[in-house]
C-alpha cells in the first residue's frame, strides 16, 4: 500500500469515456449525490484529474479500480500528520472487501466536486446559515453556489473519520462492492446473494467461479446504484479497528515525501521570495528605503505591495538577507492595545460592564444567582490564557505561477478551495482558471485554514511575472500571522454544606468554535450559567488545535478541581459524583484512575492532577504526574483514557492523542506571546518554546470502544485535558493554584 499523487497519475493516460458514463449516474457519499443530479455532470471535468491508464474504470468518484485490480481510494482531505489518508482508505477498503495490499490512496484534486459536505455543514452552518438553507440547494443541483459559499474542502475539526469516513468513504466502498456483485451476478447468471467478496475478488462458491474486481469494473459502473448500501456492523469489520500501518510513513523516513515548500514544478525556472509584513496588525508600509538591499547578491526585484514588502531573488536565502536589509517605516496603529496588560484590561472592562447579569447567555440551567446566594461556601476565581501561535514546523510558503490568464499554485493548505477562491479574487480570475496543487502539510494545527500567504504569493508572481516560491521566515509566522485568542474567564461556584457543587457561573470574552466548548455539560449541576461578554482582540484570530476547548478545558477543569479541594474531596470522586447522568464520561474517568493507580497519594515533591474533557465527539480523561522537587515542573507521566465511540485505527489514534497531549503540555508550560508597542515580542523557537524530547513525559493511552454512539475525532481531543490536569497536579504538589498560563512562568 502506498501513496500516489494525482499529478503523477494524470500523465499516465486518457480517461475511459465508458467508465465516465457509468460513473456519471453513480453516487457515493453525500456530496456525490449532489453531483449526480446536477445538470452538466462535473465528473467529466473531474475524471482527467484522477484517471489513470487505459482500461481503468471510475466506479465512483471516491474509488477506482484498475486493470491490475488495484483499488484507489480518492481522499478529499489533506494529510497533515493526522493519518487521514490511510484511515479513510482503510474504511473504504473494508466496506469494499478490498485486499489491503492492493489499495492505494490518492489526494483528491482541489475541485468543487470534492467539497466535503459533512465537514462543511459542521464548519459553515454554525456561523453563516442554518444547514437547511444551504444543504437543500445541493440536493436540487445548485452545487456550485454551495461550493462558493462554503469553499469547503476543509480538513480540520477532527472531522475526517467521523464525517467523510463514516458518511462518504464507507458508503462509497459498500456501494462499489454491491455494484461489482451485481455486475458479476449478471455476467455469471447467478443470484447476487450467492456471491461473496474477499480480498478484491468476487467468488461464487457453488460454480467455482472467481474473478478479480477489475474484471467486472466496467460492468459495475453501469449498474444501478443503491442509494443506501448496506454497511458492515462492527463484527464484520476486517480492516476497521485494526492498526494498519500508515501509507504515508515510508516516504516520511527517507526524505522523499513532498510538502508544499518542496514544490519545484517541472519546466518552471523558479525565483524565490521573502516578505516582510507589518509588525502591528492593520498597519501598512508608510515608507521604505531599499538602497542597501537592491545591490545585494541575487536580488531581482524589491516590491512595495502596500501591506507588505517583498524581495524576489535567485535563492530564498538571498531574498531573506536582502529583505532584512530594507528599512521600512510602518503606518501608525489605532489599536488601543500596546501590551498584554492593555489587552487583559480590554477584557476586564468588558467583563466589568457585563457585571452580574449582562453579556450574552451561552447556557443556563436552574437559577444560578439563587444557587450562589444559597450556597454554604462560595468560591471565585479569574483565569487567563495568552495568545498562541500555531508554529507548524513547515513555515508558511506558496509557489505561484501566473501566465496566460491562469494561475497554478503549489502550497500546503487545509482549505484548497478557499485558497483557490482567494487567488481568483486577488488576481481577478475565475476559480476555474486557478489550479491548486496541494501535497503533504508539514503540520498545520489550524494555521493553514488561513490562506493569506497563498494570495501574497499570487500577487508577487503577478507583479513580477516570475514563477515564484514565497517562504515566510519563522519570525514572520511567529509575529505576523493568525493566533489562538487570549482570554480572561471569571468564575464563581456555590458549594452546599456537604461540598456538593450546586451553582456554577462563568463569564469570558471570546467564543469561536465549537460553540458548546464553554459549557460543562457532562456535570449534573443544578444551577449553571455561562455567559459571553465580547471584547475586541488586538491580534487576528485563527482556529488553533482544539480551538475553544484549548481555553475552556483549562478554565472549567481547573475550577472544578478548585471546587473539589474546597469541598475537601478527592478530585476523581468529586467529579464522579457529578457524572451520574454521563455514564460514558464516568467510565472513562474511572478507567483513568484505575490505570494510573490513583489513590490520592504521590511521593514527596510530586503531585497528580486529573481532568476530563469531551471535545470533537471524543471523551478524554488524563492524569498527569509532575515532580516539583527542583522548584520547577518536571513532567513525569501522563495517563490518558479515551472513548471515541469506536476507534478505526488504534495505533494511529494513540499517536494523535500523544501528539495532542504534547501540544497541550507545551502550551500549558511555555506557550505565550507578549506584546510590546502592539507587536509580538517572541520570534522563533528560542523564545517561543516547544516541549522537547528531554522534557516529554512517558505517555500511556488507553482506548474504550463504547460503541453504538457516533464516532469521535482524534486530532484534537487529546489536547484540552492536558493543561488543567497539569495545573491541578502542580496544586497538589505545591499548594499553589495557577490560574494564568503559561505555568512555567510562575516558576522562573
Amino acid at each position: 500500500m502506498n501513496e500516489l499523487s494525482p499529478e503523477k497519475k494524470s500523465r499516465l493516460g486518457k480517461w475511459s469515456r465508458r467508465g465516465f458514463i457509468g460513473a456519471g449516474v453513480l453516487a457515493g457519499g453525500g456530496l456525490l449525490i449532489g453531483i449526480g443530479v446536477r445538470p452538466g455532470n462535473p465528473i467529466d471535468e473531474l475524471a482527467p484529474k484522477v484517471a489513470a491508464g487505459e482500461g481503468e474504470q471510475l466506479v465512483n468518484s471516491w474509488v477506482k479500480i484498475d486493470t491490475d485490480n488495484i483499488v484507489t481510494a480518492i481522499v478529499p482531505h489533506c494529510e497533515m500528520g493526522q493519518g487521514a489518508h490511510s484511515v479513510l482508505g482503510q474504511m473504504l477498503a473494508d466496506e469494499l472487501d478490498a485486499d489491503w495490499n492492493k489499495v492505494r490512496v490518492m489526494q483528491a484534486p482541489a475541485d468543487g466536486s470534492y467539497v466535503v459536505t459533512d465537514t462543511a455543514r459542521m464548519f459553515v452552518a454554525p456561523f453563516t446559515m442554518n444547514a437547511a438553507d444551504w444543504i437543500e440547494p445541493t440536493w436540487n443541483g445548485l452545487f456550485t453556489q454551495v461550493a462558493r459559499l462554503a469553499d469547503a474542502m476543509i480538513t480540520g475539526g477532527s472531522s475526517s473519520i467521523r464525517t467523510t469516513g463514516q458518511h462518504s468513504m464507507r458508503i462509497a466502498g459498500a456501494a462499489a462492492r454491491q455494484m461489482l456483485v451485481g455486475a458479476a451476478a449478471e455476467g455469471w447468471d447467478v443470484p447476487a446473494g450467492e456471491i461473496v467478496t474477499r480480498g478484491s475478488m468476487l467468488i461464487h462458491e457453488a460454480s467455482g467461479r472467481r474473478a478479480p474486481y477489475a474484471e467486472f469494473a466496467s460492468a459495475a459502473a453501469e449498474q444501478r446504484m443503491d442509494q443506501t448500501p448496506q454497511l458492515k456492523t462492527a463484527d464484520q469489520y476486517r480492516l476497521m479497528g485494526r492498526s494498519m500501518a500508515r501509507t504515508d510513513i515510508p516516504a516520511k523516513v527517507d526524505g522523499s515525501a513532498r510538502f508544499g515548500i518542496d514544490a519545484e514544478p517541472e519546466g518552471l525556472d523558479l525565483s524565490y521570495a521573502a516578505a516582510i509584513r507589518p509588525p502591528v496588525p492593520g498597519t501598512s508600509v508608510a515608507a521604505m528605503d531599499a538602497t542597501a538591499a537592491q545591490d545585494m547578491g541575487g536580488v531581482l526585484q524589491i516590491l512595495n505591495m502596500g501591506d507588505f514588502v517583498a524581495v524576489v531573488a535567485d535563492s530564498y536565502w538571498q531574498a531573506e538577507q536582502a529583505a532584512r536589509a530594507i528599512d521600512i517605516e510602518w503606518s501608525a496603529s489605532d489599536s488601543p492595545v500596546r501590551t498584554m496588560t492593555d489587552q487583559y484590561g480590554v477584557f476586564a472592562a468588558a467583563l466589568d460592564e457585563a457585571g452580574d447579569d449582562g453579556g450574552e447567555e451561552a447556557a443556563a440551567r436552574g437559577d444560578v444567582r439563587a444557587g450562589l446566594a444559597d450556597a454554604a461556601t462560595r468560591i471565585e476565581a479569574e483565569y487567563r490564557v495568552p495568545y498562541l501561535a500555531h508554529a507548524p514546523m513547515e513555515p508558511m510558503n506558496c509557489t505561484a505561477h501566473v501566465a496566460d490568464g491562469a494561475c497554478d499554485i503549489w502550497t500546503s493548505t487545509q482549505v484548497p478551495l478557499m485558497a483557490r477562491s482567494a487567488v481568483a479574487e486577488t488576481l481577478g480570475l475565475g476559480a476555474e482558471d486557478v489550479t491548486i496543487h496541494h501535497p503533504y502539510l508539514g503540520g498545520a494545527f489550524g494555521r493553514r485554514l488561513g490562506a493569506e500567504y497563498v494570495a501574497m504569493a499570487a500577487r508577487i508572481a503577478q507583479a513580477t511575472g516570475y514563477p515564484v516560491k514565497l517562504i515566510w521566515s519563522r519570525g514572520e509566522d511567529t509575529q505576523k500571522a493568525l493566533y489562538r485568542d487570549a482570554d480572561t474567564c471569571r468564575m464563581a461556584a456555590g458549594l452546599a454544606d456537604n461540598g456538593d457543587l450546586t451553582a456554577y457561573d462563568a463569564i469570558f470574552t471570546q467564543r469561536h468554535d465549537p460553540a458548546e466548548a464553554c459549557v460543562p455539560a457532562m456535570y449534573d449541576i443544578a444551577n449553571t450559567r455561562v455567559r459571553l461578554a465580547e471584547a475586541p482582540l488586538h491580534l487576528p484570530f485563527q482556529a488553533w488545535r482544539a480551538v475553544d476547548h484549548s481555553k475552556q478545558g483549562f478554565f472549567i477543569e481547573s475550577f472544578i478541581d478548585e471546587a473539589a479541594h474546597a469541598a475537601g474531596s478527592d478530585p476523581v470522586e468529586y467529579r464522579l459524583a457529578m457524572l451520574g447522568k454521563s455514564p460514558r464520561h464516568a467510565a472513562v474517568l474511572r478507567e483513568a484512575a484505575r490505570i494510573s493507580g490513583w489513590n490520592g497519594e504521590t511521593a514527596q515533591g510530586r503531585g497528580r492532577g486529573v481532568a476530563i474533557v469531551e471535545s470533537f465527539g471524543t471523551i478524554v480523561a488524563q492524569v498527569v504526574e509532575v515532580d516539583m522537587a527542583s522548584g520547577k515542573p518536571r513532567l513525569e507521566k501522563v495517563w490518558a483514557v479515551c472513548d471515541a465511540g469506536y476507534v478505526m485505527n488504534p495505533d494511529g489514534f494513540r499517536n494523535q492523542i500523544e501528539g495532542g497531549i504534547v501540544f497541550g503540555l507545551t502550551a500549558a508550560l511555555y506557550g505565550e506571546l507578549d506584546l510590546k508597542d502592539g507587536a509580538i515580542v517572541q520570534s522563533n523557537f528560542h523564545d517561543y518554546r516547544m516541549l522537547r524530547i528531554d522534557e516529554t513525559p512517558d505517555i500511556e493511552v488507553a482506548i474504550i470502544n463504547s460503541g453504538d454512539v457516533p464516532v469521535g475525532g482524534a486530532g484534537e481531543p487529546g489536547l484540552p485535558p492536558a493543561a488543567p490536569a497539569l495545573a491541578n497536579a502542580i496544586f497538589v504538589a505545591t499548594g499553589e493554584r495557577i490560574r494564568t498560563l503559561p505555568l512555567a512562568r510562575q516558576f522562573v
Partner: protein
Amino acid sequence: MADFILNGERVSIDADPAMPILWVVREKAGLAGTKFGCGIAQCGACTVHLDGEPVRSCSTPIADAEGREVTTIEGIGGPNGELTPVQKAWVSEQVPQCGYCQSGQIMSASALLRDNPSPSDADIDSAMRGNICRCGTYTRIRRAIKVASGQLEPRDEEA
C-alpha cells in the same frame, strides 16, 4: 564555487560561500528531504551530517563544507534505497505524523547510534533535544531509537 562530497558524490556548485548548506542542498542540488524550520539552529529540521557529525545546515555556510562530506537524508540508505535500521524502526514504531521534522530527527538519531550502539534515556535526551517535533512524536522517537539499537522489540503489527 563550492567543491564538496554530497552523499558520496563529488560535486561542484556555484554558490555564495556564505549561503547555508541547507539552501545549497535544497535549491541548487535539488535534494528536498532536508527541511527549513527556523533558520537559527533551534529546531533541527535541517540536520545533515558534515564528515559524519550532525550539524544544523541552516546555520552552517557552504564554505565550511569545502572538501568535506555532506550527507543528507537521501544519502543514508543503501544503494538501492534499502532503509537503515533507524529508518526501519521509524516505520515499525509508526513515528511520523506530519513528517516534516523527521529527516532531521533521523539524521540526529543515526549519528547517535553510530557512536553509541546502546544509548540510555539520558543519551537519547542529550542527542535529540535539539530536534523539535511540533506534532509531539517524542515518545515514539525514543522508542524507535531503542528498537533500532536492539533494546526493545518492534511494535507488533496491528496491535
